[in-house]
């Protein structure tokens, strides 16, 4: 039942079956290299978030009567307060980007804990896309706020050194993209790898035919309670923290881009 050359839970599921295989098998074979399960999960998370947001503000009233609207107002209030504290008095303009980043990344991270699914943020494609969005968004906000004076960030010191300083600053921006993406990817991929390996370990214990089932089953149950459950809880904590970190760092980059040194 368990083969030693398997390296992922997906292979185990393809052989032994899982609820997600019913849906995955709907996809034609030629499409599976271009649209793997991670990308489709990302789309599903996106549609879910948009639906919840749309439902919350449908028939919006000044004094909220529906529960959804109250929750949405509270969440938006948290976001706006955070943006005002991080970025200054004009922070409301950046609240949509930061709030969306937080909610989207959080739900994508947690999607890996659902049995059968895998986190889209455990792929470098998704995290690099999010990091480029954040850093380029900060630059665009800087240009929108300050015009071409934004480029004064890039230069520092006497004017013959300006090309060198601009190059160093540009490499610093690329390093920001790399660090944002690798931080998120590393945390979520490591969380998922650890949970996968523990599951494969428990599965291999369950598949040992030499030992009677009466001994195997309680061992696997105890192993699930002692190994799998704490790792799932740790994964939940890491997902939340990494989503928060991504949002806070993007807010810090936006603050650096749009700050006008007050007199």
């Amino acid at each position: 039942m368990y083969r030693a050359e398997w390296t992922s839970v997906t292979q185990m599921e393809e052989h032994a079956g899982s609820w997600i295989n019913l849906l995955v098998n709907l996809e034609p074979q030629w499409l599976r290299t271009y649209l793997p399960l991670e990308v489709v999960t990302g789309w599903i998370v996106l549609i879910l978030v948009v639906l919840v947001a749309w439902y919350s503000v449908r028939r919006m009233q000044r004094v909220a009567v529906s529960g959804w609207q109250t929750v949405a107002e509270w969440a938006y209030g948290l976001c706006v307060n955070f943006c005002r504290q991080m970025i200054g008095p004009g922070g409301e303009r950046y609240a949509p980007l930061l709030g969306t980043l937080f909610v989207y990344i959080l739900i994508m991270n947690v999607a890996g804990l659902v049995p059968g699914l895998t986190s889209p943020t455990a792929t470098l494609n998704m995290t690099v896309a999010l990091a480029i969005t954040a850093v380029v968004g900060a630059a665009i906000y800087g240009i929108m706020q300050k015009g071409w004076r934004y480029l004064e960030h890039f230069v520092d010191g006497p004017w013959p050194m300006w090309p060198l300083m601009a190059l160093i600053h540009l490499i610093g921006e690329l390093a920001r993209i790399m660090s944002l993406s690798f931080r998120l990817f590393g945390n979520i991929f490591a969380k998922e790898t650890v949970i996968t390996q523990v599951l494969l370990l428990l599965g291999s214990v369950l598949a040992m035919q030499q030992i009677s089932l009466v001994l195997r089953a309680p061992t696997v149950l105890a192993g699930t309670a002692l190994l799998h459950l704490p790792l799932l809880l740790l994964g939940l904590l890491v997902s939340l923290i990494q989503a928060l970190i991504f949002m806070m760092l993007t807010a810090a980059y936006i603050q650096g881009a749009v700050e006008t040194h007050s007199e």
Partner: protein
Amino acid sequence: MSFAAVFAAVLGLAVPITAVFAATAQGKVGVAAMEGIARQPEAAGDIGRNLIITLALIEALVIYALLTFLVLFPNIPPLIEKLGQL
């Protein structure tokens, strides 16, 4: 002492050594944040926010080391096979 053995041994040391230095640095940052909060409790919100950001930036370096390990780890058995000895 073949190349594969040294490779595997040093690869296993990557994350622990990084974690030692990162834990030291994060401890120092934590101490400074705690002293700042003790000195000015009304700045606890600002100090807490900056603390979280700094801790994340240091932790990212450990994650880079972990990623290096995870990328190189599946290459150990092929390396052993190619060199023909352990």
